[in-house]
C-alpha cells in the first residue's frame, strides 16, 4: 500500500452522520475497513459512489462522505449499472446483504456479474434478516429455527461464491468482517479489477445470528478451519499447514498433507479462464462449517461492458463522424410539400 503518497486519512471518508447499527455489529468493522482502504488507495471522494438497497448493510452510503444512493430493496445493482453506464470514470460500489442481494435482488446480481460492468458488489452475508428482526434468509442453513421458521427453514441455502461463479463473474472473493487487513486487501484487489467484482463478506449479526462465523473467527477454531487462498501456491491450512486440498474428479477434498504429499495438492490459480476449480473450492464449505476458503477465488480479465459499449459508439461514429440529428431525420421517406 502507498500510505506515504495518500492525500487522505480514514476520517476524510467518514460522513457526519451518526452510525445507527446495533452496538457490536460486524458492519462497523467493514465500514472502517472500507474507509481505510479508500484513504490508503488515495481515491478522490467525488469520484466514488456507494449504492445500496434496503437492509442493515444498506445504510452504508449515509456513513460515507462520498456520493451515495440509498435505493430500494434489491435494486442497487440496477441503479449502480445506470451510474456506471452514464459515467464510466466513477468508482461505483454496491453494498448489499444476503436478503437484499440474493432474495429480492437475485436477478439483478446475476445479470450484473454476467455483463461485467465495472461495479464492485459487497455482499454482507450474516445469514439472517436483521432489519426486519430475525427471519431466515436465502443463506440461512437448512433447518434454521427463526420467527418465520419455528420448526426449521426448508430448502437449501445459496452459496454466494458458487452463485457468482455460475453467473460468469470475472472476480469473486470472500472475506470476513473481523479480519480487517484481509478485508482491505480484498477491497484493493477488487478495485484494481476492471469489470464486475463480487465480494462475499461474512458479517456477524450479534443480535439475531450471533457467532454464525465463529468457526472462522474464533481464536482456536480459525486455526483449524480457515483456508487462505493464495495465487500460485498449494492450498494448505491448519496450524502448521498440515492439511491441504486436492482436486479429484472435479471435486475438492480435504487431505492430510503428510499422507498425499505436497505435490498432490491443488495449486490455486486465480486467473485460469475455466471457473471449475474455483467452483470446486467454493463447495468445500456450505455455511461456513468446517474448513472454508477465504480470499480471491477468481480474477480473470474480460472487457468491461461500458468499455465495449463505448467502443461500439466510437466505431459507429468513426469514418463519417458523429451523426447530425437534422441529417438523420431527413434520411428516409421524406418529400417536399409545395
Amino acid at each position: 500500500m502507498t500510505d506515504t503518497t495518500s492525500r487522505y486519512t480514514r476520517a476524510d471518508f467518514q460522513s457526519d452522520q451518526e452510525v445507527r447499527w446495533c452496538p457490536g455489529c460486524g458492519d462497523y468493522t467493514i465500514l472502517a475497513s472500507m474507509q481505510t482502504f479508500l484513504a490508503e488507495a488515495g481515491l478522490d471522494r467525488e469520484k466514488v459512489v456507494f449504492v445500496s438497497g434496503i437492509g442493515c448493510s444498506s445504510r452504508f452510503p449515509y456513513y460515507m462522505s462520498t456520493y451515495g444512493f440509498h435505493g430500494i430493496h434489491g435494486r442497487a445493482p440496477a441503479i449502480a449499472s445506470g451510474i456506471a453506464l452514464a459515467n464510466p470514470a466513477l468508482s461505483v460500489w454496491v453494498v448489499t446483504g444476503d436478503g437484499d442481494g440474493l432474495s429480492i435482488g437475485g436477478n439483478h446480481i446475476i445479470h450484473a456479474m454476467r455483463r461485467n460492468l465495472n461495479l464492485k458488489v459487497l455482499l454482507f452475508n450474516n445469514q439472517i434478516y436483521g432489519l426486519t428482526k430475525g427471519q431466515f434468509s436465502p443463506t440461512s442453513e437448512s433447518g434454521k429455527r427463526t420467527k418465520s421458521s419455528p420448526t426449521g427453514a426448508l430448502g437449501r441455502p445459496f452459496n454466494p461464491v458458487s452463485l457468482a461463479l455460475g453467473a460468469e463473474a470475472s472476480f469473486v472473493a470472500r472475506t470476513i468482517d473481523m479480519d480487517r487487513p484481509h478485508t482491505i486487501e480484498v477491497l484493493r484487489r477488487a478495485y484494481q479489477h476492471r469489470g464486475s467484482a463480487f465480494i462475499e463478506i461474512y458479517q456477524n449479526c450479534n443480535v439475531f445470528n450471533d457467532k454464525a462465523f465463529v468457526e472462522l473467527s474464533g481464536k482456536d477454531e480459525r486455526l483449524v478451519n480457515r483456508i487462505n487462498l493464495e495465487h500460485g501456491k498449494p492450498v494448505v491450512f491448519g496450524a502448521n499447514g498440515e492439511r491441504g486440498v486436492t482436486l479429484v474428479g472435479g471435486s475438492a477434498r480435504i487431505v492430510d498433507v503428510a499422507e498425499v504429499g505436497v505435490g498432490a495438492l491443488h495449486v490455486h490459480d486465480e486467473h485460469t479462464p475455466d471457473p471449475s476449480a474455483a467452483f470446486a473450492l467454493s463447495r468445500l464449505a456450505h455455511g461456513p462449517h468446517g474448513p472454508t476458503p477465504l480470499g480471491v477465488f477468481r480474477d480473470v480479465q474480460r472487457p468491461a461492458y461500458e468499455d465495449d459499449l463505448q467502443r461500439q459508439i466510437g466505431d459507429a461514429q468513426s469514418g463519417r463522424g458523429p451523426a447530425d440529428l437534422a441529417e438523420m431525420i431527413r434520411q428516409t421517406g421524406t418529400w417536399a410539400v409545395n
Partner: protein
Amino acid sequence: MSEPQRALSAGRADAATPPADPAAPADAAGPTDPAAPAAGRLLELTVTDLALLERVRIAFSDGLNVITGETGAGKSLLIDALGLALGARADPGLVRHDAQAARLPLLYSSYPITPASEILHELSRYQRLGVRTFQAEDEIAAAGVALGAAFAGSLGVTGTSGPGLALKSEMMSLAVMIELPMIIVDVQRAGPSTGMPTKTEQADLLMAVHGRHGEAPLPVLAVASPADAFGTMIEAARIAVKYMTPVIVLSDGYIANSAEPWLLPDLETLPDISVPFVTGLGGEPRFLPYRRDPETLARGWALPGTPGLEHRVGGLEKEDVTGEVSHNPANHQHMVMQRERKVAGIAAGIPELAVDADPGAGLLVIGWGSTYPAIFAGVRQARARGAKVARAHLRHLNPFPRNLGEVLRRYPRVLVPELNRGQLRQLLRAEFLVDAIGLNKVQGMPFKTSEIEEKIVEMTRP
C-alpha cells in the same frame, strides 16, 4: 466570437471542405498533409464545443484572410480545430465542458414488451448520435438503470407497457422522493394482465396518475398521434429537467402501430432544454441538495464527480434544504406538500387548453391520447349534420392546463370519449365537479368516427 471573421486562409486543405467537426477524424476532409500543394481551398470552418468555442462558423473569402482578436478569444483554437479536422489526435479535455448542460446524453433502458419494443429497436440504431440503449434483465432494472443514469447526469428514459408500468411503480416513487429527472413511456395495451397485448386501450391513465405508494404525484403527458410524439417527448424532457421530477408519457398500441405524414421540425426552433447543474457551493459551507429554486421548487442537480458536492440521496424522507434523513413529523408533511406544489406548479408553464368551438356550442367533447383523430373527424361530421359543438384535446393530464376548469364550465354538457371505462372522466369529475358524460369502449380497437359522431348528434339534438 464575432471577432475572427477574416481568417488567414489555410489554402492547403482539400476543396469544398465539409464543416469540420472537432470530434471527427479527418478522412472525410481529404489529404491529411497540410503542407501538400494547394489542390483546393478551405471554404468554411465550423467549430462546435471546442474548449471555449461553443459554436463558430467561418466562411472564408478568396485570397488572404486574417484572423484577429483579443488574447484568449480563441484564435489558436481555430487553428487547433483545423488540425483536428485534418486528422490530429483529439484530446477529450478540449471538448467544451458545459456542452453537457445543453445536450444531455440519452440513456434508454428497457425490457422487451409489446407494443413498446420498437422504441428500443429504433434507438439502438442511433449509436452514431451517442445514444446509449440498455436491454435490462427486467422492467424494474430497466427503471433502475434509467434512474441511476439520471443521478450521474444522463437523460434517463425507460419504456414499457401496462404490466411493466406496474413493476416500475416502486422505482417511480423513489424517483419522486429523490427528485431526479426521468421519463417513463407507457405504450398502453388492452389489460389487465397480459390482456390483449397487440390491441390498444387507454386504461392505464389512473395508474399513471395515482398508481404509486405514498403521496407520489408526478406529471403525466399523453401522445395524440405518431407525429405528436416528437413534441410530447421534448415537452416531457423539458418538464423533467426543469422541475427535477419523473414524468410519465402515455402512448398506446394504436399510435405505436400507426404512421402519418410528419412535418420535419426546424431543429433550431426547438426549446432549449439546458440544465444548470450545480457546480459549486454558492457561498454555503456545504452542499444543500434539497435547497429549492423558489419559482419551480426544483432542487439542484449535482453530479457525482463534482468535487465538494458529495451528497447522499435515497428513499428515506429527507429534511428540506439539507437533505439529511429525517423522521420529523412536521418535516414530512412539509416535504409531501413541497413535492405536491412542485408538480402542481408545472401548470404555470404549460399552454392554456385550446378549444375549437362553434359559436353557441352547448357541448364540449374532450379527449386525450390516441382518440384525437377519431374525435376530430367525428366532430367534423357531426358539424356537417348541424351540431354546434366544441372540441378540446389534452396533452397534459397532470397537472391539467390552468384554464381547464373554466373551459369545462363554459359548456352545459361535457362528453369524454375514452378507450377505457371512464378514467379521465373520473379525474375531471373529482377535480372540477362537472357532470361529464362518458363514451367508453374497451374492445381493443380505436373509436370509429361514426361512434363519436352519433354520440355528439344524440347529445346536441334539441
